[in-house]
């Protein structure tokens, strides 16, 4: 987890100068610098890290965004872009010597083309709002992160957000056709297009998930899909977590790609059940939710196949949603897993590692061991279909010792994910939170390439500096080496 490398004290003279430069073209209410106005921007969804920004800029036109960036570039002021502020890795943590660029006023759906099945939206449009707007056309936007009622599409682009349906429907990178925006120098960029296979390098793929380090997005063209006519979900109980994991592999082996395939362990289902009453089997060691969508005929056929596989895999109980209300209730528990933890613990810390599914049992046993080692509880919710684990460490942030143990616990889990061939982050991003674990996942040469990519877009290093990619110096101080499959790469080389 990231410590603060930068100065945390605001220089009042610098603040006045930057605010004055921005007020030259922004209305007064769009440039905030009084502490009481800037305080609400001190953190994103990762509230453990807070820092009040020097200045907050709230542009509402593309031209204003361009000028904010040009001005900051000319004055060497770092810029931290921010969408809805729901990110879970501190990607929008402000800088005390920087401008926080809020895209919150970019709230318009610019164009919906039902025939071409796409929508052009501004980055501040909420994820769920896109699907709401196009629902009357029988269309929807597929990626559905749990925070979809609040998170913005611009933030989704920055983080390459997923959701519970991405095994079948993909991540943000699979559902965005194009973006427009600006580099830190205020140059216009347009990556991707409504036509397939834009010429040249796939800069769209590079920009998506770049955590606001490469460019600021002012317009997003998303792909819309025909809304499946019908969906049903099977809820299956298992008396053993590893059996549930094996059941997931069995479903895939059968050639089925469920629309959603989620697992929760008993501590998670118990916390959730007390909170939302989703009819979860709280006696089961783990439950699986497997959803099928499509035409009614298709769903019946697939649900029957899923049930038969789960039964063979040792499910002790199975319930199939009878109607839409019941389907939504089954999902409500999963979607409420995070807030439910907030009810049983003063704080919780959510991890986001992804592992090859076959290593699930090993990783869960490892986490159970850490619960004992650190004396902290850790329920698990799991995007089982795509191997994305969300262990939730329960702790009390008012106890500094517990916070420190939590951070060590989390670091060990993430490093285990890398060791088994996975990644430290499946969908929440690196941000400031997992920046040290990047040193474990990547070799210095690879980090050097990331820095080189960054310089191509932002030679002064002014866009969201200090996030996503650690400096080699930081990795050397962190003291943990990149290890791949248990072997150091190029053992002959001197280190740092």
């Amino acid at each position, binding site marked *: 987890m990231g410590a603060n490398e930068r100065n945390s004290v605001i220089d009042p003279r610098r603040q006045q100068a930057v605010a004055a430069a921005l007020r030259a073209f922004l209305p007064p209410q769009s440039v905030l610098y009084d502490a009481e106005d800037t305080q609400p921007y001190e953190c994103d969804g990762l509230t453990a890290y807070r820092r009040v920004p020097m200045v907050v800029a709230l542009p509402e036109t593309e031209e204003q965004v361009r000028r904010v960036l040009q001005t900051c570039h000319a004055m060497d002021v770092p810029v931290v872009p921010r969408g809805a502020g729901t990110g879970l890795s501190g990607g929008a943590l402000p800088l005390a010597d920087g401008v926080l660029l809020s895209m919150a006023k970019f709230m318009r759906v610019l164009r919906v083309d039902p025939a071409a099945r796409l929508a052009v939206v501004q980055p501040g449009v909420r994820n769920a709002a896109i699907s709401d707007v196009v629902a009357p056309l029988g269309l929807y936007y597929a990626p559905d992160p749990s925070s979809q009622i609040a998170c913005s599409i611009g933030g989704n682009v920055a983080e390459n957000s997923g959701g519970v349906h991405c095994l079948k429907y993909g991540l943000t990178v699979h559902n965005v056709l194009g973006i427009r925006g600006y580099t830190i120098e205020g140059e216009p960029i347009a990556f991707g297009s409504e036509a397939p296979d834009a010429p040249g*390098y796939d800069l769209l793929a590079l920009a998506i998930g770049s955590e606001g380090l490469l460019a600021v997005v002012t317009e997003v063209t998303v792909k819309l899909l025909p809304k499946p006519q019908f969906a049903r979900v099977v809820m299956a109980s298992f008396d053993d977590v590893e059996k549930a994991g094996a059941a997931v592999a069995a479903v895939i082996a059968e050639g089925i790609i469920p629309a959603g395939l989620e697992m929760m362990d008993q501590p998670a289902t118990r916390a959730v059940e007390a909170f939302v009453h989703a009819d979860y089997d709280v006696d089961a060691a783990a439950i699986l939710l497997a959803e099928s969508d499509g035409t009614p005929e298709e769903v019946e056929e697939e649900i029957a196949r899923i049930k038969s596989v789960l039964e063979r895999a040792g499910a002790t109980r199975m319930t199939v949603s009878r109607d839409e209300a019941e389907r939504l209730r089954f999902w409500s528990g999963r979607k409420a897993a995070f807030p439910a933890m907030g009810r049983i613990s003063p704080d919780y810390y959510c991890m986001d590692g*992804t592992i090859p599914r076959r290593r699930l049992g090993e990783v869960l046993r490892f986490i159970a061991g850490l619960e004992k080692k650190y004396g902290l509880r850790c329920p698990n919710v799991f995007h089982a279909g795509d191997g994305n684990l969300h262990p939730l460490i329960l702790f009390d942030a008012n106890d500094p010792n517990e916070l420190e143990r939590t951070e060590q616990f989390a670091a060990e889990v993430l490093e285990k994910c890398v060791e088994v061939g996975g990644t430290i982050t*499946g969908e929440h991003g690196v941000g400031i939170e997992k920046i040290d674990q990047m040193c474990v996942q990547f070799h210095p040469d690879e980090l050097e390439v990331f820095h080189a990519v960054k310089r191509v877009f932002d030679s002064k290093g002014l866009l969201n500096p200090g996030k996503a990619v650690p400096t080699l110096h930081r990795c050397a101080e962190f003291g943990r080496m990149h290890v791949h499959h248990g072997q150091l790469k190029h053992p002959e080389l001197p280190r740092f």
Partner: protein
Amino acid sequence: MADAVQSLADRVRAAADAGMRLCLRGGGTKDFYGGALEGEPLDTRAHAGVVRYDPTELVITARCGTPLAQLEATLDENGQMLAFEPPHFARDGRAATLGGCVAAGLSGPRRAAAGALRDFVLGAVLLDGRARVLRFGGEVMKNVAGYDVARLLAGSLGTLGVLLEVSLKVLPRPVEELSLRLELTQDAAIAQLNAWGGQPLPISASAWCDGLLHLRLSGAAAAVRAARSVIGGEALAGDVATAFWRSVREQTHAFFASEAPLWRLAVPSTTPLLALSAAPFIEWGGALRWVPTRPGDPIPREAAARAGGHATLFRAQDKSAGAFAPLDAVSMRLHRGLKAALDPSGIFNRGRIYPDL
């Protein structure tokens, strides 16, 4: 295999030291694609074989020299497939490799339904211009650690380095497939394909040529049955359908027999009939239109750009018009910067995408 990597790395280091250009090449099946070949050939085929494949993980990792046909056969034995249905363009005894397939970045008939090649790239191991072995992405479905350099390499035509290994997401083969044939004018076919596209129908491929629209339905048996009753048309026998879609993917269909320059127009799928010098072959629900040109015909780059798309000079003896549509100045600067970051001496596949890249 360490030897094969070592030997590739030695060649790259020597070329960088000597300022000598290299032409990365697998089976040579995509030699025709992009700008002219330049530099000393660097054959990648010795670095071959599947590294890891566990069907229940839906991921295969293989070395660049692995024959594409062998990789697909391995998947097929396990009821799985590369859902982007890549063209091989295997001719004259040449066999496509995985490295060439990913470097070319070309997808086949299933692309409009399942996604493009780049959508299935999960990770890559790259030998860059400093002979460094670099891993990006990984073997898991969701991975947002670091910039998505692996996906950037898809379609980069070998200009950024040697793709040593690639990890691809794979999918189960559809339970059922059925192909239909309908008589439709070009206008009607484009309109109809877009209308069907907005409905939850399991259309996995489309091809219009000379008044005939072919559709392939893939999915659960019930879904295919239901879609057939909505769409109508005449069903093709299984082997006829398989041969037809192969001829589309591999461009062995009669439409492609001509020696005339062949243009590939990627446009928004709803683009109405384009004013072109010849009737096109249309795929991907209207988004991909192939057009031959005769001497004196205007090149269709303008027409594609006006429609919001772009035109690639796909197959031609004379590519002086440029293989790919030109980029705006900012994008071109970013391209040069990325090229310099991974290939500072400019040794890999020069001119394959743009003359100065």
